[in-house]
C-alpha cells in the first residue's frame, strides 16, 4: 500500500504545531524534521510531488521513536507513528533495504537459538572486554554509525539466556490460579533475564502451572523498521504457537511485546486468513502489570524505606492504555513512598533498538528523563519494558545517579 492512499488523513494536519509540545525528539533537536508536523508535511510533499523518495528522507522517517506522544497531542488524532511506519515500508521498497537488516529480520530474530549464539558471543566479548560487543553482536550492525556506542548501553550481558535456563515447556506452579502461558520477549531472553526469572517466579507462585512458550520475536522491530512482511512472518509463527496453548491468558513482562501482540489484528487486517487467530491472540494477551491486578502478589516488604517512581513505557501507556495499574501495585507496597515522575510518560529514548541506531539523539532524550528522575529524588525507578530498563540504567550510569532501575516483577 502506498502512503498516497492516506492522503486524506495526512491533509488533516493543520500545522498548528501542538505535536511539538511532547515530542522527545523535537524537544532535543528543535528540528522540524523530528516532529509529526514536519513528517506529515514531507509525506504531503511526496504525494503532491514537490519532493521525491530519496535518502534525504531517511532521517525524518527513521528518527521517529514511534512513541505516539504526537497523536496524544493532536486534536484530529492523526496516527503519525503508523503513517511513519507505512512510509518506512515504502522507503525500503523505493530507496532500498540493506543486506544487514535482512540478516536481522530474516535470519536472526525468527530463530531464538541463533539469537542466543550471537548474544553469547557478545556476552563473552563484553564481559571479558576481549572484543567489542559491536563486532560480536553482529545483529546490531544494522543500525549504522551510532552503533559504536551500543556496548556502552548494555552494561553487562548474562552469559545464559532465560530460555536456556527455562526451556520451553510446562512448569508446575504453587498457586491456585488458572494456568497461564508466558511469552518471553527477546530483550528479556537475552538481556533482562533477572526480570524474566522474577516474572516466572511470580507466575508460578499464583498459578497452578505456567507454560513457557516457544515463541520467537513478536515482530515489532521489523514492523517499526518498515518491514511489514518480516513482521508478519514472525507474528504468524507466534500465532501458531499461541493457538496451540490451552492457557486462558498469555502473559508477557515486556510491554512492547504485549502492545504489539495486541495490535496483531491490525497487522492481519482486511480479511487476512490469520485475522481470526490474531484477534484471539490479542484478546488473551496481558501485560504483566495487568495480570498482576487480578493476582495481587503478597506484599513483599522488599521496598520498605524506598522512594519509588514509575516510568511509563510508550507501549504500555499509549500502546495499551496502561497507566494506573503499575502505580496501584507500587503504592500498595508497605513502607515504600511512591512519587510521581515528571513527564513519566515521555519516551526515554530507548524505543526498542532506537538507542542503538541513533545513539546521540537517544542520549539527548534520555538526559531530559534523567533530569526529571533527579528531581523526583527517587532511589528506585520501576518500569515494564526491557528496552526502557536498558536505557534508564545507562542513563543512571551516565549521570552518576544513585538510582536503581528494576522491572516491576523484580520488586514485587
Amino acid at each position, binding site marked *: 500500500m502506498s502512503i498516497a492512499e492516506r492522503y486524506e488523513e495526512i491533509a488533516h494536519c493543520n500545522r498548528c504545531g501542538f505535536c511539538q509540545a511532547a515530542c522527545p525528539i523535537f524537544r532535543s533537536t528543535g528540528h522540524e524534521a523530528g516532529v509529526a508536523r514536519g513528517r506529515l508535511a*514531507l509525506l504531503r510533499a511526496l504525494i503532491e510531488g514537490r519532493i521525491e523518495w530519496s535518502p534525504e528522507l531517511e532521517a*525524518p522517517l527513521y528518527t521517529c521513536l514511534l512513541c505516539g506522544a504526537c497523536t496524544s497531542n493532536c*486534536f484530529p488524532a492523526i496516527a503519525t507513528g503508523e503513517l511513519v511506519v507505512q512510509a518506512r515500508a515504502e522507503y525500503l521498497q523505493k530507496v532500498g533495504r540493506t543486506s544487514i537488516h535482512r540478516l536481522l529480520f530474516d535470519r536472526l530474530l525468527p530463530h531464538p537459538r541463533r539469537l542466543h549464539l550471537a548474544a553469547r558471543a557478545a556476552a563473552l566479548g563484553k564481559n571479558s572486554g576481549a572484543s567489542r560487543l559491536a563486532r560480536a553482536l553482529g545483529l546490531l550492525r544494522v543500525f549504522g554509525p551510532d552503533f559504536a556506542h551500543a556496548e556502552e548501553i548494555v552494561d553487562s550481558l548474562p552469559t545464559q539466556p532465560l530460555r536456556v535456563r527455562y526451556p520451553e515447556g510446562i512448569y508446575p506452579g504453587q498457586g491456585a490460579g488458572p494456568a497461564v502461558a508466558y511469552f518471553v520477549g527477546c530483550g528479556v531472553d537475552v538481556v533482562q533475564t533477572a526480570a524474566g526469572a522474577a516474572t516466572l517466579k511470580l507466575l508460578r507462585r499464583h498459578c497452578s502451572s505456567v507454560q513457557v512458550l516457544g515463541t520467537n520475536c513478536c515482530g515489532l522491530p521489523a514492523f517499526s523498521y518498515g518491514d511489514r512482511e518480516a513482521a508478519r512472518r514472525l507474528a504468524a509463527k507466534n500465532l501458531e504457537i499461541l493457538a496451540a496453548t490451552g492457557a486462558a491468558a498469555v502473559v508477557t513482562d515486556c510491554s512492547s511485546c504485549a502492545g504489539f501482540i495486541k495490535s496483531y489484528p491490525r497487522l492481519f487486517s482486511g480479511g487476512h486468513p490469520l485475522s481470526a487467530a490474531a484477534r484471539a491472540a490479542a484478546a488473551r494477551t496481558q501485560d504483566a502489570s495487568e495480570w498482576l491486578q487480578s493476582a495481587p502478589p503478597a506484599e513483599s516488604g522488599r521496598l520498605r524505606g524506598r522512594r519509588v517512581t514509575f516510568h511509563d513505557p510508550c507501549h504500555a501507556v499509549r500502546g495499551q492504555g496502561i497507566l494506573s495499574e503499575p502505580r496501584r501495585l507500587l503504592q500498595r507496597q508497605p513502607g515504600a513512598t511512591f512519587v510521581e515522575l515528571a513527564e513519566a510518560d515521555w519516551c526515554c529514548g530507548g524505543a526498542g533498538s532506537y538507542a542503538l541506531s541513533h545513539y546521540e539523539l537517544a542520549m539527548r532524550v534520555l538526559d531530559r528523563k534523567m533530569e526529571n528522575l533527579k528531581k523526583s529524588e527517587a532511589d528506585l525507578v520501576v518500569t515494564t519494558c526491557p528496552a526502557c530498563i536498558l536505557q534508564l540504567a545507562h542513563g543512571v550510569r551516565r549521570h552518576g545517579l544513585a538510582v536503581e532501575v528494576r522491572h516491576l516483577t523484580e520488586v514485587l
Partner: protein
Amino acid sequence: MIPKTLLLELRRIVGERHVAESRTAAELYSYDGSLAKGPPAAVVFPADARETALVVKAACRAAVAFAPRGFGTNLSGGTVLPYGGLSICLTRLNRIRSIHPHNRTAVVQPGVTNLELQNALAPLGFFYAPDPASQKVATLGGNVGENSGGPRCLKYGVTTNHVLGLEAVLSGGEVVRLGGPAHDPPGYDLRGLLIGSEGTLAVVTEVTVRILPRPEQVLTQLVVYDDVRAAAQSVADIIAAGIVPATLEMMDAPIIRAVEESLACGYPRDAAAVLIIEVEGPAAGLARQAERIRALCAANGCREVRAAGSAAERNRLWEGRRGAFGAVARLAPNYLVNDCTVPRTRLPEALAQVAAIARKYGFDHGNVFHAGDGNLHPLILFDSRDPDQLTRVHAAGWEIMRACVALGGTISGEHGIGMEKKEAMRLVFSDDDICVQRSLQQAFDPLGVLNPGKLFPETATEFADKPHAIWAGADDLLSAAERETAVAVKAALADGSALRVEGAGTAGPFGNLPARPLAPLATGRLDAIVAVDPANQVVTAGAGVRLGVLQAALAAHNQFLPLRPALGLERRSLGGIAATGGCGPERLHYGAPRRLLLGLRFVDGRGRLINAGGQVVKNVAGYDLTRLIAGSAGTLGVITRLTFRTATRPERCALLSAVGGLEACEAVARQLLGSDIGAVFAAAAPAADASAWRLLIGFEGFAETVAAQLRRAEEFCRRARLAAVTATDYDAVSGAFAASYAGIAGRPFILRAGAPADRAAAAAELIQPYAACGALLVEFGFGRVMAGSNGLGLADWRRLSGGLHALAGHILLETAPVEFKRENDVFGAPQPEWRLMHRVKETLDPHGLFAPGTLPGSGPQGAAR
C-alpha cells in the same frame, strides 16, 4: 539560492550539523501555522546570542534576507520566506536564565516555551500573565514577535505589558539591550516598539519578563446559551457593568461539538454557545463578582451556569478551549482564522456579519475567541487542496476584516499581520501612516534583510483596486484643531524654527537643553472630548484636555482614568501626561499611561497627521507607534488626540500607613508584594522624625475586598512591629500622595529613579541625602524613587547616576535649572540604546523640528562622546 561562501561561514559559526540545506529542509521550513508558504534556502540553528549575532552579521554582509523563527506556530505567515533566504531558528536558545521572585522578574531565552516558563514559576507561587492558547508550543521569542495575548489578557494585558527588557541583535549584527529589570528607563520605549514587530526590526536573544504572584482565588464558570446573540450580549453587559474578569472566552456550536468529539470536556453538545468566565484575585468579595456575572448572564436568558468545583474540573474546561483550534482540524482539512477585534458592544453585530460572510462564500465556520477583549477568531473551514476554495476563503477573510473595521475594530488583535494581512493594513492606516511605519523599519534595517515582505503592503498601486481605508472616519469636534496644529507645524518647518510642544504648562521644560531656541506650540485648542463610550470603557479626547476635565466627564458614568501623575495632577493635559509618562505609585496596579492608551494621533516632523493604534483594547496591526510616541516628550511630534481605556471607579480606595525604619518598611512591602494580597501600591516616605519612614499601602476595589485587604496588611505590619498602623480612605481621582507631591513640587531639581524592585530601598537610601525635607517618595512594587532637591552639584549627580547604574537602575532629572543643564546630561551616563533613539528621532523628525537636543545623550556628556 544562497552564496556558497555564506553557507561555509554559517557552518563555521554554528557547526556543520546546525545548518540545514536540502530539499527536505526547505520543505520543512516553508510553512508555519498560517496558510502562507515560502521555502528558505537554508535553516540555521544558533546556540546562543553570540552565534546569533555572528549569523546575522554574516547574512547582512552577504545581503541575504532572513527571518527569525521560534516554534513556527504563528498564524500570519510571520516566519515563512517569500523571497527565500535564511530561516534563523532560535529553538536552541531554550534556557530559563534566572527567576527573581524578590523583584518579580525572570530572564529567559527566546526559545523557551510559554508553558515551560509557567511551569518553572508555578512552584514559586508566581505566573507569567500572557497565556496564548498555544502556550505549550509558543516560544517567548514568538510571543514577543507577535505581541501575543491569551485568555487572561483581559485582566492583565498582553505581552508588551509584561516585558521589561530585551537583548536583541540588530541588522548588521550589533547586540543591544533595550530596557532591563528596572521600569521606565529614560528615552523612547524601543522595547515596546520591538514587541509585535514580527521579526522585522531585530532578532531577540533574551527577554526579561515581569512575573506576578498567583491570585488567592480563581472562580471559573461555564455559562451555556441556546442563542449566540444572547451570549455576545452578556459579554457586552459584563464589561459595561465594570467587572473585569480575568478571562471571558466564547465558543459557539460548531466548536463545542468539535471539542467534545475529540476530548470530552463536558460542554453540552446541543448548546448554541458557551462562555468560560473566570474571576480571580483576593478571595474576599470574589464570590460576589461571580454572582453579579451570573445575574447578568441570566438576564440575557442563559440556559445554565456551571461552576467548576475543583482544579481538575477547571482544567477540563480549559483543555477544550485550548484545544479548540486543533479540534476544528477534525471537521475539515484546513481552517482560516481571522483575529479581528471589535468594540465589545459590537460583538453581536460582528458575529452576525461573520456568519453572513461565511455563508455567502459557501463555508462552514465556528467561533472560539477572547470575547472579553472583543477579539474574534472565526475559523472558516475549507480544503487547501482545492484552489477554488483557497481563493474564496481569502476573499471571505478580507470581507470579515472590512466588516470589523467598519464596526470600529481592527484587523488583528494578536496573531499579527505577517504575509496574510499585509494588504489589509490599508483598511486601518492611511498611506502616510504606513509610510511612517516603513521609515522606522528602514531606520532599523537599512539593508532590508530582516524578514522582508511582511507587515506592509508591497506597493502603493498593487492594491489600488481594493476598497480603500475606512480609518479616515468623519470629521469630529477635534478635526479642525488638529488640522490647525498640522498647519502650525508646517509653518515652523517652512521658516526653519524649532518647536516646544506645550501642554497645560504645569511641568517645566523636560530633557536636556535644546540645541536651538524653541518656539512654543500650544495644544490648548485641542480641548474637545470627542467620545465617551462608557459601555466599552473607552474615551477619546484632545491632547489639550486637562485630566480633571476628563475625570469629571467620566465621573458621570461612574468611571475614571486611573492615572495620577505625580506633579500637577488634574491640572495636567492629557498630551503632557502621555508624552512624559506621568504617573504615580499606582502605576504598579494600573500601569503607565502607555498601558492605558489604545491609540493616538500626532503631527509628525513633516507636518502630517499620523494615526497610531486604534479604538480597541487589543491591536497588533503594524508597529506599536502608540508606545513610541507616548513617552517621547514632544521630541517626535505633537500628539493631537488620545484614546484611553477607562476603568470603573473603585467602590473604596483606602490606605494603610505604618511607621518604622526603611529596612522594616521594605521587608513588609516585599512580603506583601510577593503575596496574593493585591496591593495597588506599596510606597514609603520619610516620616517627620528623620530616621523613621512611613509605609503606605493602597487598596482599591469593592469595599468588601478592600476591607479584607486592609485587615491582612495590618497583620503584616503588626508582625513586623511597625508603629502607628492606621487606615484612611482617599479619593479615586486625586489619590493618596498629595503631601509627598507638595514636598517635591517646585524644587529646582526633581529626580526620578528606577531600580529593580528589590533594590528600591537601596536607591532611596542613595538619594535621601540629596533630597529636601519631606521631598522623597519610594515605591517598592516597580522600584521608583521620586525626590525634590534644592541643590545638586556636578559630583553629586555623577555619584547618583553611577550609584543607580550600579543597582542596575537609572536616574533622570525631570526638572533642573538651566545652568545645571549646561553642564550635565539630565538623563545621566550614556547608554548604548540611546544611539538607536537618535536614529528613530532622525527618522520621524528629519528636520530637527521638535525640541532638538533634549533627548538622552544630547546633553554635554552625551555630546562629548
